């Protein structure tokens, strides 16, 4: 009997459930090898174990410079990817990005203010300032949004808080002299250069809190995406659950942004990648994949950041924007063309996932998405609606 026609590709001996983790692990290994071997001095993979264990200049470069940087890239990417998924699921909006919570701007303000105003602070306080700024921005957003009352209110308020903090940052940037400006600008784009083991170990306690919370939170996320009413019917206290998810996202993003700066677009890309890779599963299934994708994206983007214009370091955030966004566009477009639009369901579609209603659901999803994306139309008052023009 011939293979059924709908089979997308020849069946291989390895089922996809095994193949995908293997492929991801292979990619991670390749990126890690490149990160550890390339650069000055360049090593061959065979020399790597000797350099990791031995002593001398080469091994110092590998163990004290390249290894912490690689670990930091992986951890930061994983945190941002997971936080992006938590945000998108909790707010039921595919456009919710970590930058929209005010966390990144707050951290940037915390870094820039002492630098520009030439405040003399003890060295121990400075990383805490970035962290404090990040927490301040996040809490401010949550406070102003009435602690997660409705998803769109959270997004709008987040945009407003981010804009206000941005304005303060602009004032500081105009004040700054050339050198400070370079530092701030690099930090704002997200950079992993010259980070040491101290930075990595500083993330430890935060991860110890946030990872168990993430595991506890994952099942609730799958329920939240059904919509507030349905989630309530299932027995979830929606506001409290959403508040917990948002707080968790802040907890994940803040320490990372404090150390490496707001690495752009990882929190947006990783969840979309995860949904493409695992179309069938829910939020709990996407979460680890989103973390892995984020880690891959950041570690992969750090390679050109380190090597492309050597000896000049370029910020990793510029490369995630330059390489990641086109990749995201391709993904979005392919996702739109796909027959069943697997994983791009944003909650609205869940209701109409069966039977002949699918077609209606598809067209009906557009106004719903309009409504959600309308947080970009701040004042979108009646004036913007074309129907208004007809009436006049």
């Amino acid at each position, binding site marked *: 009997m011939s293979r059924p026609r709908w089979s997308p590709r020849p069946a291989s001996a390895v089922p996809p459930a095994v193949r995908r983790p293997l492929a991801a692990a292979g990619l991670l290994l390749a990126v890690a090898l490149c990160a550890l071997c390339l650069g000055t001095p360049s090593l061959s993979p065979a020399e790597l174990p000797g350099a990791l264990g031995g002593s001398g200049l080469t091994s110092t470069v590998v163990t004290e410079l390249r290894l912490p940087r690689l670990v930091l890239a992986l951890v930061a990417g994983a945190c941002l990817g997971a936080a992006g998924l938590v945000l998108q699921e909790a707010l039921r909006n595919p*456009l919710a990005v970590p930058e929209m919570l005010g966390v990144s701007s707050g951290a940037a303000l915390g870094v820039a203010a002492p630098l520009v105003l030439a405040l003399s602070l003890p060295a121990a306080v400075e990383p805490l300032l970035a962290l404090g700024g990040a927490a301040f921005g996040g809490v401010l957003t949550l406070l102003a*949004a*009435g602690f997660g*009352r*409705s998803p*769109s*209110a959270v997004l*709008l*308020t987040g*945009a*407003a*808080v981010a*804009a*206000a903090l941005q*304005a*303060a940052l*602009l*004032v500081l*940037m*105009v*004040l700054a*002299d*050339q050198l400070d*400006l*370079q530092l701030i*600008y*690099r930090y704002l784009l997200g950079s992993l250069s010259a980070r040491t083991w101290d930075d990595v170990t500083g993330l430890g306690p935060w991860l110890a809190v946030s990872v168990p919370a993430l595991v506890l939170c994952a099942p609730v996320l799958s329920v939240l995406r059904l919509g507030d009413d349905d989630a309530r019917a299932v027995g979830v206290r929606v506001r409290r659950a959403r508040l917990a998810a948002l707080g968790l996202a802040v907890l994940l993003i803040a320490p990372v942004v404090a150390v490496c700066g707001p690495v*752009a*677009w990882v929190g947006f890309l990783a969840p979309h990648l995860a949904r493409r890779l695992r179309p069938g599963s829910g939020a709990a299934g996407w979460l680890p994949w989103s973390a892995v994708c984020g880690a891959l994206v950041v570690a992969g983007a750090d390679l050109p950041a380190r090597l492309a214009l050597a000896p000049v370091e*370029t*910020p990793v*955030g*510029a*490369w995630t*924007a*330059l390489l990641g*966004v*086109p990749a995201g*566009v391709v993904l979005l477009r392919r996702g*739109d063309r796909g027959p069943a639009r697997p994983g791009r369901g944003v909650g609205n579609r869940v209701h109409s996932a069966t039977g002949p209603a699918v077609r209606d659901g598809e067209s009906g999803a*557009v106004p719903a*998405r*309009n409504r*959600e*994306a*309308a947080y*970009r*139309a*701040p*004042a*979108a*008052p009646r*004036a*913007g*609606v*074309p129907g*208004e*023009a*007809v009436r*006049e």
Partner: protein
Amino acid sequence: MTGATQAAAARRAPRRTARLFVLLALLALAAGCAALVAGRALPASGVWEVLRGGGDPTSRHIVLNLRLPRALVALVAGASLGLAGTVLQSALRNPLAGPEVTGVTPGAVLGAVAATGLGFAGWHSPAAVVVAAGLGGFAGAGLLWLLAGRERGDPAQTAVYGVLVSAVLSGLTAVVLLVAPGELGSVVQWLVGSTEGRVWPHWRLLWPWAAVWAAATYALAAPLTLLRCGDEQAAAAGVHTGRARIAALVCAVALTAGAVSVVGALGFVGLLVPHLAFALLGADLRTVLPGAALLGAVVVCGADAGAQGLSQGLAHALDSDRLSVPVGAVTTCAGAVLLLIVARRRVDDR
């Protein structure tokens, strides 16, 4: 609304519009005066003295060569941005389409920054900056046009692509800035939006450009009004929809590029001013376009005056001389406040 009140409203409409225009013009004048008076070196009495023909050479120089061109540039740049935003929102039939989210402003910034960084242009050749900003703006808009493809009709989708295009363009700007870091200090004002130190050459460059394109835009007002009603209606009324839309986009990009090349990327002006104008003046672009221009001028010039007053107060309070608040910070802050109000209102609606 009942028929009778509607008819009464229709009778009252022209007078109300005229009154609004007078009010807006007065406001623009007031903003200009405020920008003229604000500043730390010369008090208001000194300005009045100079305007009546007196004053010592220093104060004459301050008022006539520094403050006057600055206020005029702020007025014209605001008008350009307001017009461009209105045209974009009408032509794309998308309430979310400001110059910032359609790739026009980031493209113009990229063009200006790249031309300066690579040495093709600089403060001594402002015309080259305008040309580069224009090219960049067209490139940004073109990129979005290509990307949006068949989904141009869906406003939310276009907005998503616009954000993505803007992200790529600002990533490119970052790379250019890091390759030529020597320019960062002089270039940061394009990223921020500032009217600091704009003098007569900038004004001479900006106003003919803005005037020509504003006239072209006004000539398109009637087809644009029809385009707002939908492509089918516009086509039925005899408008070449494709041609009209492209002409409108060219005007919008040119206006934005002119404003950005002189004052930089002012946040939120191009997005919020059109909404205000539509809310105040209805949907007929023949009245909305001049209204949006006046409103934009009022907003930017008022923000400039406010920024100067604020930096004066802050400098006094903090006792530091180099503190100066850029206009971009004030407009961004105003945008943030408006966003917060909208968010509050949305919550109350539920």
